[in-house]
């Protein structure tokens, strides 16, 4: 016995360098891939990386890309995404991605180099107060000032990033710490003394929630990204609960895929560009069951007109999300999957004990919902020549519908909202988009991260031409690692979403929302070593999409779409759900729906 354990013992207690400790901790935490970019302060880690094979390093072309790639990796796998950047500009370039991950609750551990401890505070070369800058940009951050704490901090960083409401964690690593030596210690088994997120819901809260649900006449399940974060089992539980109760289901932008789009109980996305049926169901419901969504202003519209007649249940793993924007009747703190399973059990128990949900009321509620559905709110004016962006996405959806391995990322703008409306997600973790922060430049690197995790899958970045230019350099990474990512640009030559707001709110004064001198995306693709394809006429769309998929290489598609198309339905900022503007094909659009010009109150909102 003792002889067998002796070698590992000495191995574990033998001093190794800080850089080696970092890598050992990563391996022990199950990390396989790091997205990074080197520099002086992290050279010891890069040197250690060179001498091992357990971790794969993906060399991005800018640190912003590293974080978004890690986000795509994390969101599509449920694992923690790992980033490694140098001090100063390396760290500051990562900040946008960190805030993005914070807003969308994506688990990220970002290792930043730092100047040696004795130089901290001296304005040393490439020094930045990284923990200061990233304090409000992360779930938590650490500056390691004593190598004895390094192992512990590394393990804790992963625990904090992935548990509770997931989020980004920064570990700032001064160079002398990386070069010092001490023994590595494995992850502790003891609980964290102060950080203990609550994951099991209080049974009394579940009982109160199900009380309401059993009596509901006009219910809705309002689901969000918390269900994605809980894992695929939570989606299964949601489907079970929905079918057990017969309740309609809507989802936030971040939650798309938790309920299969093909399920008849699914009403589509809600919110600013959500469906007519989802928003009116929210507006008119009498019991709202929010699971893992956070009453974002993009969802609620005007707060004092938000779902005015409903009793609200809100289940969230983060107690600070509850009663933040909307006061709810029954708060439930816990992990979405646990909450859903507890609700299922409680519902079954109630029914077994003789509780009788109001089937008649539910049936007439569904009748009402079906009339809203018939409004066909996503209809758009068809064309025979010019490519409507919605048409391009409809075709992308139709052509890829039979496949089970499609992952969609997006940039930010109209194309993002159309993708949310027209792409149909049957599973969670298949849809990666920057929801909370709305970061242009997210989709391309995120697609790269997804493809690293799923090498054989079809990964498409539904993009706008303006957003694509914000992290275009990552095409070079994509080529280096032979990632067959597809960048599907709906090129309208406008910052379309900005143009749309200017049209609706600022008298069609298109101030700085048109881009002259855009690059030739086909040639640009070729310059990077990708395949470039272009469609300018409706008749070319299918062929281009088919070729894009057939080519087993990275492809950039320049889909030249209608420049003036707007994204509908739309609830203008500051309006209520029942004040939605519908598209030009709707027979009542313009008269009954949009209630005149947008209020001044609404104008100040973003």
């Amino acid at each position, binding site marked *: 016995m003792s002889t067998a354990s002796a070698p590992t013992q000495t191995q574990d207690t033998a001093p190794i360098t800080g850089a080696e400790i970092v890598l050992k901790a990563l391996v022990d935490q199950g990390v396989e891939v790091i997205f990074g970019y080197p520099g002086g302060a992290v050279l010891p880690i890069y040197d250690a990386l060179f001498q091992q094979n357990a971790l794969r390093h993906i060399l991005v072309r800018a640190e912003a890309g590293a974080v978004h790639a890690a986000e795509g990796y994390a969101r599509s796998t449920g694992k923690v995404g790992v980033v490694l950047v140098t001090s100063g500009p390396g760290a500051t370039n990562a900040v946008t991605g960190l805030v993005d991950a914070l807003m969308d609750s994506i688990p990220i551990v970002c290792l930043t180099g730092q100047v040696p401890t004795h130089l901290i505070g001296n304005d040393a070369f490439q020094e930045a107060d990284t923990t200061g800058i990233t304090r409000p940009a992360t779930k938590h951050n650490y500056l390691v000032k004593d190598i004895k704490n390094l192992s512990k901090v590394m393990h804790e960083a992963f625990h904090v990033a992935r548990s509770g409401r997931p989020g980004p964690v920064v570990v700032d690593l001064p160079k002398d710490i990386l070069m010092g030596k001490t023994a590595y210690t494995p992850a502790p088994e003891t609980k964290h*003394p102060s950080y203990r997120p609550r994951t099991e819901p209080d049974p009394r809260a579940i009982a109160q929630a199900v009380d309401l649900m059993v009596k509901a006449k006009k219910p809705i399940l309002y689901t969000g990204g918390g269900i994605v974060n809980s894992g695929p089992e939570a989606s299964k539980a949601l489907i079970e609960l929905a079918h057990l109760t017969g309740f309609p289901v809507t989802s936030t932008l971040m939650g798309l895929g938790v309920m299969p789009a093909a399920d008849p109980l699914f009403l589509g996305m809600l919110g600013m560009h959500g469906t007519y049926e989802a928003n009116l169901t929210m507006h008119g419901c009498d019991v709202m069951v929010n699971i893992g969504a956070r009453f974002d202003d993009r969802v609620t519209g005007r707060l004092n007109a938000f779902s005015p007649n409903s009793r609200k249940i809100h289940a969230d793993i983060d107690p600070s999300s509850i009663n933040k924007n909307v006061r709810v009747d029954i708060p439930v703190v816990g992990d979405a999957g646990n909450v859903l399973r507890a609700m299922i059990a409680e519902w079954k128990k109630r029914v077994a004990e003789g509780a009788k949900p109001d089937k008649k009321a539910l049936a007439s509620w569904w009748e009402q919902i079906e009339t809203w559905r018939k409004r066909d709110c996503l209809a758009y004016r068809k064309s025979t020549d010019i490519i409507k962006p919605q048409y391009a996405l409809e075709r992308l959806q139709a052509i890829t519908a039979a496949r089970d391995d499609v992952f969609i990322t997006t940039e930010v703008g109209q194309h993002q909202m159309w993708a949310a409306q027209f792409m149909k997600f049957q599973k969670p973790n298949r849809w990666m988009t920057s929801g909370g922060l709305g970061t242009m430049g997210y989709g391309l690197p995120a697609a790269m991260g997804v493809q690293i995790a799923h090498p054989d899958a079809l990964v498409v970045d539904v993009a706008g031409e303006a957003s694509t230019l914000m992290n275009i350099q990552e095409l070079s990474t994509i080529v280096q690692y032979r990632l067959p990512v597809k960048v599907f640009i709906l090129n309208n030559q406008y910052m379309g979403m900005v143009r749309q707001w200017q049209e609706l709110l600022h008298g069609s004064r298109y101030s700085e929302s048109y881009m002259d001198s855009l690059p030739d995306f086909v040639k640009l693709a070729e310059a990077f070593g990708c395949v470039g394809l272009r469609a300018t006429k409706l008749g070319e769309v299918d062929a281009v999409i088919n070729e894009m998929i057939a080519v087993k290489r990275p492809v950039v598609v320049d889909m030249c779409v209608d420049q003036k198309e707007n994204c509908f339905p739309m609830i203008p900022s500051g309006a209520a759900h029942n004040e939605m503007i519908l598209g030009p094909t709707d027979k009542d659009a313009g008269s009954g729906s949009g209630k005149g010009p947008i209020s001044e109150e609404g104008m100040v909102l973003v």
Partner: protein
Amino acid sequence: MNQASPIQRRTIAVLVDNEPGILARVVGLFSGRGYNIESLTVAETDADKHLSRITVVTSGSEMVIEQIKAQLDRLVPVHRVSDLTQEGPHVARELALVKVISKGNDRVEALRIADIFRAKAIDSTIGSFVFEITGSGEKINAFIELMAPLGLAEVSRTGIVAIARGEKRM
């Protein structure tokens, strides 16, 4: 949404790890989210466990107060958040050092009032006193107000520290 309910004043005690940056986290949370800080005090209270206790006096609607507590509790190095105002009777004290520079009658009067307020002169010269006074914030305000015409020159206050009455522990 939040304007509907009346503004309340709360004294909140927060037990935290005494580590670099913890105060910045708490203060940053208040400024970043637009919460009020009326007073904030912090010092290590358990050297063995490296724990500090922060006492913060804040105000806001019921919903905002609940947010403040939930947001504080969410910080990784925060062990406990206790709303002393809500959780029952508590005692709250503040200490102030008040410098008064005066001569003649004013000087005598300052000393007389200090006596009434049980303020101690902890430094005196021919032309000045430094009084130490403890008490509730209101008592200290009253004292300072009375000193104003009597040569009040400078004030340094600690902000409120507070603790629950009785056997209850945090």
